């Protein structure tokens, strides 16, 4: 079985996101003054072969160690069978 894994990594609230601010300003400039804020993160699509019992636990471990930096980022992990 193949498992599809989606990981979203976002900058923490306390961390400045100048990229998000620049995009927010551009959106306002392009006719949407209602935009309050934009935060820019990363979306990762991962495919995993097989699904033994501790797969999710190992994925969380890698999210903390590699895919995100817990000092500046939060992550969300979702898995679904393909």
């Amino acid at each position, binding site marked *: 079985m193949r498992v599809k894994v989606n990981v979203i990594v976002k*900058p923490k609230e*306390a*961390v*400045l996101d*100048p*990229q998000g601010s*620049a995009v927010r300003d551009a959106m306002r400039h392009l006719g949407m003054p209602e935009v309050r804020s934009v935060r820019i993160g990363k979306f990762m699509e991962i495919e995993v072969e097989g699904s033994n019992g501790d797969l999710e636990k190992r994925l969380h471990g890698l999210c903390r160690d*590699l*895919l995100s*930096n817990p*000092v*500046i980022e939060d992550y969300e992990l979702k898995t679904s069978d393909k």
Partner: protein
Amino acid sequence: MKFAVIQFPGSNCDQDCVAGINSIQGLQADYVWHKETSLRDYDAIVLPGGFAYGDYLRCGAIARFSPIMDAVVSDARAGKLVLGTCNGFQVLCEAGLLPGALVRNRSLRFVCEMVTLRVEVPDSAFTRGLAEGTLLRMPIAHGEGCYFADKQTLQALNDERRVIMRYANDRGEIVPDANPNGSIENIAGICNREGNVFGLMPHPDRACDARLGSADGVRIFESMMQTIVARHARAA
């Protein structure tokens, strides 16, 4: 005295580091490829600037898992002097040897210019003989040099006098105008609690010859040398 300069795929200041260190009498620098696993033969370790592993994912995120990093971490924990400049600073943060992280410059621009640094801690392993308030000139060249740490970490860094250098103006004032990248409290360089691991965003390696604009970087390498000599003298 031998310094190791680690080469990751994508390092691009390794030659500056080796040339800078070798220009100082009494020091010899060797390149050490990231696939090596021991740094036993070296008195100090330098992680150079560049874009290790293309800075993919985050700056330093993949480099920190290079085989040599086990030796860097264990030698650092054993007290060996470790200097990370620019990308090297980012790798040290990702590896957990230094607190906090370096994020995108607030301006969103890659900054490449000469800056003034104010020495905040005069007696560190990396600033021996430099009085508090000494101003050093060094170049910076980075897109992700904005130092971030949460409130608690920042408090600890200040209380424990671990902010070694801050960006300052020509008069030595720590002001927003002198901050090239948005780092909190103008932080340019910090050390670990034990004081033997130093991360610095500016490039001492590119400031080792007055003909190239500044030789102030020499002071950092000389300070490391003096610290090691003093340790050997104590041990003898």
